[in-house]
């Protein structure tokens, strides 16, 4: 089984801290690796991003690939922050998984700083693992423009609102994959999913990728395998596109 060694773990963690601390920090890095796959996960506050990441990581780990998860949460006005996403990833399967690396970030109020640093952090992390997953609160919470530094962008949607809401939400065009997160408290998930498929799915991006929408239940871990298949499909698509 592939592992992230303790030395790699420590270097990666400290590198990430330095990037966040010093806006213009750079490490002379070896050439860009092609093999690492960067997945971005966005969605509004209560959409269920962190709940979904847990089964998502488990499903991705089945292929014996190393993963670095970078979790971004907003800082409070007083400068402190409660970074709770890591707690959502607590799981007997993941707790001591040596192929998994998790780092939590606070936005530290300076939106631009993290925006400058994030692409560098991601390309730094790419040297250590096979997959980098970046979770960030979507538009409205932070201004991190995540779509520019990821290969595949997954957006988590709570089944709230109707066709108009879907049309209006700004990030929609940018995401490659959508996951409609079903929850007990929402009774109209099925209807919303149908609408989302019409409004968001089956549309073709400029590069020829046809957007996909999936129905998942993050809490009950339903629909995860299908979603992961969808993510892989996008990776394959990107690989085929690249000139060899």
């Amino acid at each position, binding site marked *: 089984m592939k592992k992230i060694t303790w030395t790699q*773990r420590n270097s990666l*963690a400290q590198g990430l801290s330095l990037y966040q601390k010093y806006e213009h920090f750079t490490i002379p890095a070896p050439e860009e690796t092609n093999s690492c796959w960067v997945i971005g996960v966005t969605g509004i506050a209560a959409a269920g991003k962190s709940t979904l990441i847990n089964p998502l990581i488990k499903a991705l780990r089945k292929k014996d690939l190393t993963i670095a998860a970078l979790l971004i949460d907003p800082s*409070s006005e007083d400068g*402190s922050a409660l970074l*709770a996403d*890591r707690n959502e990833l*607590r799981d007997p399967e993941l*707790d001591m998984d040596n192929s998994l690396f*998790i780092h939590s970030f*606070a936005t530290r109020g300076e939106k631009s700083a993290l925006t400058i640093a994030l692409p560098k952090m991601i390309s730094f992390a790419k040297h250590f693992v096979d997959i980098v997953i970046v979770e960030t609160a979507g538009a409205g919470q932070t201004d991190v423009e995540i779509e520019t530094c990821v290969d595949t962008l997954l957006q988590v949607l709570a089944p709230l609102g109707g066709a108009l809401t879907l049309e209006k939400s700004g990030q929609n065009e940018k995401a490659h994959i959508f996951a409609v997160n079903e929850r007990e408290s929402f009774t109209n998930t099925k209807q919303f999913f149908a609408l989302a498929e019409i409004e968001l799915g089956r549309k073709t991006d400029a590069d020829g990728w046809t957007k996909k929408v999936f129905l998942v239940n993050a809490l009950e871990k339903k629909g995860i395998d299908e979603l992961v298949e969808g993510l892989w499909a996008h990776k394959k698509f990107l690989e085929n596109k690249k000139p060899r």
Partner: protein
Amino acid sequence: MKIIKPGKYPFKAGIYPRMYKDKKPTVRQFAGMGTAKHTNARLKKIDKFGGTGYSIAMDLPTLYGDDSDAPLSRHEVGWDGVAIDTVQDVDDMFDGIAIDQKSVSFTINASAADFMARYISVAEKRGIYPSRLRGTVQNNILGEHYSQNEILFPLEHGVRLSIDLKEFCAKYMPNWYFASYQGYQPRESLCSPAMEIALPFTCAIADAKKLMERGLKFEQFAPRFSFFFDSHNNGMKEIAKYRAARWLWAEITHRLFKMPIPRKYDLKDPKLQSMWCRIHVQTAGCTLQRNRPSNNIVRVSNQVLWAILGGVQSIHANAFDELYCVPTEKGVRIAVDTQLIQQYESGFMDFPDAFGGAHELETETERLYEEAQREVANIENIGGIEEAIKVAYPQKKIHENAVKEIAKLEKWKNEPGKQYFSAKDEGQESELADITKEIEERRGFEKEQLERLRAFKKDRSEIAVQNTLDSVKLAAEKKENLMPILIAAVKTATMGENHGALREVWGGPKAMPLITSRLSREATLKLTGGYKFPRPVRVLIAKGGHDGHTVGFYALQDIFRAMGAEVIHLGLRTTPEIIAKAAAEENVDIVGLSAMVGYAPGFFEDLQKCLVNADKRPPSTKERCPDIEIIGGGIMLPQDEKMIKEKLGIKNIYVPGSSDFSQVIANLKEKFGQ
């Protein structure tokens, strides 16, 4: 005001007409420590002291359904209760004790079904039918979700398991009280007395509905419900509480479950018995004081008297040294004697509901009855206790009241004349000497129990174990009652293996909710002295071991946030290895660990070792980067605190009630700068 005699609906004055003249309250003392053998010896001693029933406490790994050799069980085995891994453990615990002649109470919830399967299996082996067993099992998983967090599965599966056990008992164990609904734990977490009544009642209502869905009639199981309340300091309010509870429960059974108001009182009539709120009381652990522990003897004695005046059916008096984990032998003896003295010398046993009719008591009873009734209605309107737990209603109500109570207590303690509560004196060291000696012995329990477990595992066939666990998994996927499968399974499988199999099918519990601590803003500021970190300091906070008490954990979270830190929340049930991995990945400056039950220096020593192991940086960098600072808190003996500070060199240890938090702040200032 109409005076209602004991034994008459709505049983405000007592459930039996002659009360203690016919049946004295059971003197039920907690026992359970170390391995089955140690507990066996303690049980036999309780007989000798004059106890009339057993109440068995399990250690944390058992309450969480884990085996003693699980990574999380380190430093906890046999610590605050008996360690149960195998059916052999249960058998040895009752060695030489005729279990069909004794009433035994088991305080266990999440893993109750598995444990009872072991008890029933031991009885079978001894040729005793389950129908002849007498006793109580707490078995209220809903209560764990709103108070102690002792949970193993997602809510709905945990409820199913507990209903399976209840249904089994209702059908085959007519002498077994299979549900004791806890108001005690939420009250210890400082909820209001009305909530203390309302929460267990709503749990009982939820269970009753589920059991009726399974085809049972209310009167077939309700006579086996019992309720578990706290006995706090304020006598008048406590007596009123027991009266109000009986009144409200009788009314609920009448209105909601159509039990008729009796015309003739036939004490053997199950419909009449279904209306009785049977009460077990434990004196309030949260009122005990740490300094001058002997003062607690007086306090407990009062609380026992309130319970007697309140007409309860069974009493557990806390030992004066219970704050330091399981009571010592001397502690148990004094606690039993306290109960006996109140029974034989107070004279109140001959006057049921002695103060009934007194204006103040009746008014207070009525007020509490109405308030509790409103709370029950609130929870029922949300959709019952299960739904209420999902939206965190009871958790929030408990929390809100606790914030208020703590602020009140802080003020109270500092009023003139209250020095006795927090002062230390010379006698204290010698008072603690016995406790220290007994606690030292406990450190050997873990090794002994691991040996017992190894011996059991060596003697069985791996294929048999696999087959057994497969059968458990298969049954868990279906809907039928799990008890018969478990009773068969416990002969080969350990407790941890059974629960592991169930978890494979059902999944584990949900992550702990994020709430703020009970500290008010002012209290937090007082602790930090207004200090703020000069840079964004990163802190990882975690709770070690199985224990689910979260008070200290949330307090750490709020204190660090007040200082402007970025707090990474790792949650409950972490091993030192998990903490070290997270600390390395998050590149934190501080690790905050809260450890409550078990051998505290062990937790911190392991953590320190793991942090060093995780730090594989070249030595040159190590010097430049500061080491990770450990900040610890928890309940521990003075010499353990000293050992952690001196031997391990961890300066920042905070023990509520004994150490000074400003020292920790001073250390942080020195390290991180003004």
